């Protein structure tokens, strides 16, 4: 199993080209029979008479690195996955752009799908990242994650 630590923060949005390239890179891993992907997108929420135009993400990097290591160890222990990739944006991500990319792969579909879902929940609960929603009028509010 591949458990190599990789850079998991991306400056700005995660580009569709990066996601496509990530999929392409797995074509040589022919033991894989299923991929499950989650893409988190910045929503243009309405705030009173204002609209969210972007989210600015910050982190506590030293804690994030150890937390991501723990998340990966947990997921590999729980699920029969071949590989797992998690990328989270830092900095400004405009509404409509991708801010979280989770990519789980396994020989059969169930493990990939469950690991992908588990990874998203772990990231939202445990990864020390904060989102500041910026509105069209230049105001901001701190994002609060919903339970599901």
């Amino acid at each position: 199993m591949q458990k190599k630590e990789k850079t998991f923060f991306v400056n700005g949005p995660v580009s569709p080209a990066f996601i496509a390239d990530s999929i392409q890179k797995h074509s040589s891993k022919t033991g894989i029979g299923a991929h499950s992907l989650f893409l988190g997108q910045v929503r243009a929420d309405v705030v009173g008479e204002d609209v969210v135009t972007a989210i600015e993400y910050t982190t506590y990097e030293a804690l994030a690195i150890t937390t991501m290591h723990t998340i990966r160890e947990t997921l590999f222990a729980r699920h029969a996955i071949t590989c797992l990739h998690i990328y989270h944006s830092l900095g400004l991500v405009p509404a409509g752009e991708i801010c979280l990319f989770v990519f789980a792969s396994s020989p059969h579909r169930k493990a990939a799908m469950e690991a992908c879902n588990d990874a998203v929940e772990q990231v939202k609960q445990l990864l020390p990242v904060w989102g500041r929603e910026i509105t069209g009028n230049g105001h901001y509010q701190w994002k609060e994650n919903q339970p599901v």
Partner: protein
Amino acid sequence: MYMNTRITTYGKITGIAGQNIPAPGIPDTDALRTWLQQQFPALAQQTYHIAVNHIVIYANTTLPAGAVVALLPPFSGG
């Protein structure tokens, strides 16, 4: 004597207390919470965890000399 404590804040706590808080020598995290609330009364309405040397702590913890302390409001990634 306890050494001065270096505190860094994150998320919405930064807007209340600033990014870096110079603090006197404080023996443990319970005393730190009390001191912070005296300095920044608005923190009383906030939920936050304390990390000591990059580890989130859940019970009163001694602050070792030169500890790196962080105040962490609820995470909101993704």
